[in-house]
């Protein structure tokens, strides 16, 4: 009925590794913001047979993504690249009428800059679970990609990424703020 212990001989496990690990922060020197990329593994931590050390770091490819802006403190400053954002209704990924016009002018810019590439970022407002919102943002980014595709932009020039609700440009809990955050953002690279 009652078991006051498990196993005839009681407990016995190795404890040393975990308790030591608990006190030791795995600090790998963080690259300065704006520093160069492609830091290789090996700056600390044991390197196992199949695995890399924890804590490696890196900067993004284009440098102008929303994640880069969050890292250098300019996210939400209103700075736009050559392409304009579009916006969405709550929990929706349909391209709205006025945003179709924005996509048309974005497509014109891309046509006149044939060597450029674009990464389409999908973003969400902060209501709902993180994971569902990453999937919703992926749907929003894909909606713009499909639309630009129908306007003749080659899909090889376009990539998509979703940041879900992780990178809001407005942080108040208001309808206006939420509406600003439900967006596709376009990051151009040459």
């Amino acid at each position: 009925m009652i078991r006051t212990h498990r196993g005839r001989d009681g407990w016995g496990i190795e404890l040393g590794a975990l308790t030591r690990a608990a006190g030791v922060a795995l600090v790998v020197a963080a690259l300065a913001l704006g520093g160069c990329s492609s830091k290789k593994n090996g700056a600390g931590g044991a390197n196992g047979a199949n695995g890399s050390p924890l804590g490696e770091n890196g900067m993004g490819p284009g440098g102008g993504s929303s994640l880069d802006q969050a890292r250098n403190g300019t996210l939400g400053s209103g700075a736009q690249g050559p392409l304009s954002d579009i916006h969405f209704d709550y929990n929706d990924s349909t391209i709205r009428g006025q945003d179709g016009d924005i996509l048309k002018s974005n497509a014109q810019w891309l046509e006149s800059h044939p060597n450029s590439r674009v990464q389409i970022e999908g973003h969400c407002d902060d209501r709902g679970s993180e994971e569902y919102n990453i999937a919703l943002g992926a749907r929003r980014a894909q909606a713009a990609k499909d639309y630009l595709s129908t306007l003749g932009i080659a899909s090889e020039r376009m990539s998509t990424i979703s940041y879900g609700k992780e990178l809001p440009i407005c942080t108040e809990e208001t309808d206006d703020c939420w509406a600003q955050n439900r967006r596709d953002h376009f990051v151009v690279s040459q």
Partner: protein
Amino acid sequence: MMKSVIKRMLFIAAALTLALAPSAAHAQIRFDISKAPTAAPIAVSALKNLAGDDDHSVSAEFDRVLMRDLKLSSYFRIISPKSYIENAQNSGYDIGQFNFGDWSSLGADFLVKGAIKANGDSIVVEALLFDVPQQRRIMGKRFTGGLGDVGEMARRFADAALQSATGVRGPFDSKLAFVSTRGGRFKEIYTSWLDGGGLFRITDNPTINLFPSFDSGARHLLYLSYKTYAPELYLVDVGRKTETPIAPGLGQAVGGALTPDGRIVGAYSRGGHTNLYLLDSAGGEIRALTQNRAINVSPSLCADGSRIAFTSDRSGTPQVYVESLDGGDARRVTYQGSYNTAPAFSPDCKKIAYESRDGGGFQIFTIDAGGGNARQLTVSGSNESPAWSPDGRYIAFGSTRGGRSRIYLMRALDGYVIAPLTEGEGNDSNPSWSGWLGN
């Protein structure tokens, strides 16, 4: 290359040297776990230092962790040590060697006493649980280990005390993983004990790290990171402190969870559709678990590995579904509410906790895994990301009830919120609760 890791094996041996006969122990069950407990007063005496010196730091550490865990269980209320009459160093610690009257006069229902002695490089801690009104010893444990293991001894004793008092082993010999922005950082993954001790940062990159997921023994941890700017899942070997990127080439990684046997269920987005895949521990695809044009995310494994619960909007709104890991049709579980997500299977696989949209925020509910019997557990603030304790009695969750987001602990039975599990600056979210570390 500094690679001189000294492998020092420390063992905690908890021998049940002082067990009572089963019939006597049976009479000691004080709590009916199907009912909300009234906290019983317990006194936690200092451990008697058998070396006879004045260093009581081990005792203080043991008692601090033990009292915190007993309090977090909500079955016990700690009687303040300031009121204790007896001096632990001047009295014995087993039946016949101390006066129960010194404890009954404080109103104690339960009493913990014990002793500590050094044994070469290791220490031996003996701890005993007594029923004060009946003047009986209920349970005893002897632990051997290093100085760094004292907290672990206390956690195991707390779990054993709960086993004795309720018939079900306590949940504290386990780990919590969560996401935090503490230290002014971006979202990083941390692990800690349930009592908040042993805080350890797993990630170190100023991007976005989300969705920690332990395997049952906390040997591995899966999480999602944007650290290369292309989001991927990473599988951490907790002991070796190494990690492996999981890159099956199925699209953008959206989230995932570990199966009890170390495989991975990952959510990947391609062409705007997000589907779930069963992967091996190296990231190789075993099979697709969903194949549709909807969103399928937030997998949670039932502890026997047979089924997953997940969120899908295939019906038009996000709802919770259950599906066999062998394949087969998904079965919808939630029907009330227009936004139900973040499902978490209870350890016995009978219930699912999830969050449901309620006005501007979310509340945590439980529902039978086969559907039906939905119960709302939380009411105040916005409450998200439920995670069950290994014994199924508790749920950790993220909540903004106190302002910034913190991880809280509540009873699964009635939604009674016991205490916050995290504190300090920053926002804490996405709790994952491992299984027991010891067997």
